[in-house]
C-alpha cells in the first residue's frame, strides 16, 4: 500500500502522518513531488511539472527528486 496516500497535506506545506502522529514541513517543490507521488504519477511527469512551474533545469530536477525520495525513505514514508 502506498503509505503516502495516508498523509494529510496542507497547501502551506504542513504534512501530518496519522499512522505515527508525526508532522513534517515541506517547501513548495517538495509539496509538488509529494502530491505527485500520492497520486501515483511517474517521476518523469512530476519532474516535468516542476520544470514547468519553477525555474529549474530538468537534470537538476531529476537529481533533486531522487534525493527527496531518499529522504522520504529515511522517514519511512516510502
Amino acid at each position, binding site marked *: 500500500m502506498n503509505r503516502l496516500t495516508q498523509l494529510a497535506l496542507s497547501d502551506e506545506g504542513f*504534512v501530518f502522518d496519522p499512522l505515527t502522529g*508525526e*508532522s*513534517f*514541513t*515541506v*517547501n*513548495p*517543490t*517538495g509539496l*509538488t*513531488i*509529494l502530491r505527485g507521488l500520492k497520486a501515483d504519477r511517474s517521476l518523469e511527469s512530476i519532474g516535468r511539472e*516542476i520544470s*514547468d*512551474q*519553477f*525555474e*529549474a533545469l530538468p537534470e*537538476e530536477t531529476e537529481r*533533486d*527528486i531522487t*534525493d*527527496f525520495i*531518499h*529522504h*522520504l525513505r*529515511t*522517514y519511512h514514508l516510502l
Partner: protein
Amino acid sequence: MKKSYEKPIILKLQTGFMNKYGSTPYYSRKTRSEIDGVPIDTLVTKFGSPLMVFSESSIRRTYNEVFRAFSTRYPSVTFGWSYKTNYLKAICSIFHQEGALAEVVSEMEYEKARKLGIPGKNIIFNGPHKPFEILKRAASENSMIHIDHFDELMELEQISQQLHKPVKVGLRLNMETGIHPQWSRFGFNLDTGQALDAVKRMKHGGKLILNGLHCHLGTFILDPQAYAEAIKKMVAFAYEIETHFGFKMEYLDIGGGFPSQNKLKSSYLPPELTILPLDEYAAKITNALYENLRPGDYPRLIIETGRALVDESGYMITTVITSKRLPDGRKAYVVDGGINLLFTSFWYKFNLEIDREVPGVNEPAVVYGPLCMNIDAIDEGTLLPSLPRGARLIVSPIGAYNVTQWMQFIEYRPNVVLIGQQGELDIIREREDLTDIDRREKLPPRLAYK
C-alpha cells in the same frame, strides 16, 4: 511567470526538544562572497579549488592590537613569532616586518629563519630536540637558546668549550599553575626543585650564563589567571637565582597558548562567550609583573603567541563535489578539501560560510572531505540549505597549524594565496604536483615495471 526554484526538502517537526543550534536554526546561515574585497569566484578562477587564503591586513591588524595591549602596559615587550604555527615564508616575513623575533623549535625551523635573513640573536631556540650541530651553530650565532633538559645542558657546556666562549642561555621551566594537563614534559620542573638543580649545575660548570627564564603553559588556555601564577613563580625564582648564584635575568618569556576565536568541539558555548579578549590576558600578565617585580626592575617580557595572531587571517575555500542522502536522513556534502589540509578539524568546529545566497530552509548536514577515508569529515553536524554542485564552502578560521601540519596524503596540497593590503594577490605556496611526491623516492631498477 515561473517561480524561483528551491530544492525540494522535507523536515520532521520536533517539539519539546531544546534547540541545540541556537536561534532561528532553519533560516540562519552565513554567506561570504569575498575575502578582503576579493570575490571568492575571482580567487577560485585564478588559483583553483581548494584554496588556502591569508589576509595580510588581518595579520598585521591582529599583531598590532595584541602588541599594543601589552606594550601600553609594560615598558619592555617583544613578540616571538611561533614558526610551528605557520612557517610559510611570507607569513613569517609579515611578523618579522612587524618586529617579531623568530621562535623556532627544530633544526628545520632554525634553518628556515636563518634563510629568511633573521640573525641568530633574533632567534629564540626552543624545543626538546636540538641536534648537537645545530645547537652549536645557534650558540655560535648568539641565538636565545632555551635549555629543555640536562643532556642539552651538558652539550651546551661542551659547545662552550669548543667555541672558547661562555654561552648565554635561558632555562625552560614547567610548573603547576592550575592548568591541566600540565605540560611537564618540557623543561625543568620548578615545584620539585629540578630547575634549581639545573641552575646549580650551570653555576658549577662555569661555562653557561643564565640570562632568561622561559615557560609555555599549554595551548588554548582559557584562564588568564594561569599566566599570572606563572609570572609570580618565575619572578620569585629569578630573584632566588640572582641572590644565590649571581645570574641576572634579562628577560622572562611566558611562551604562548593564548586562544583564538575558534570553537573547540568540546565547548558547548560559542567562542564569543567562552574566550576572553586578549586585553584581559595582557592585563593579568602585566599586573602580575608589577605585583612581583622589584621597583625599577623591568626585565624584557617575551611572548610567543602564535594561534591568536594568525588563526583568524586564514580561510580555506572548498567546492561541493557532490551530495547524497545518508541512511539517517542527513544530507552529506563532499567537498574538495578535507582533513588532509585541515589538521585542526580534529578539535575545532569551524565556521562554514556559503559563497552565495541559497534559497530554502536549512537541514541537518555533514561535510566530508575528498579522501577515500571514513574519518575525513570537516563537520559532522551542521545545518545547511540544499547546496548545488559547485557551490563553495568557505572554512575558517584556519590560519594556525594547518599549513604546517597538513598532510601530503592522497591529494595534492593546493595553492596558498596571500591577499595584500592593497589587494595584491600572490601565491605564497604553489599547488603540488607529482614531481613533489616523486622527487625523494628511489625505485630500485629491479622493481621497475616492464
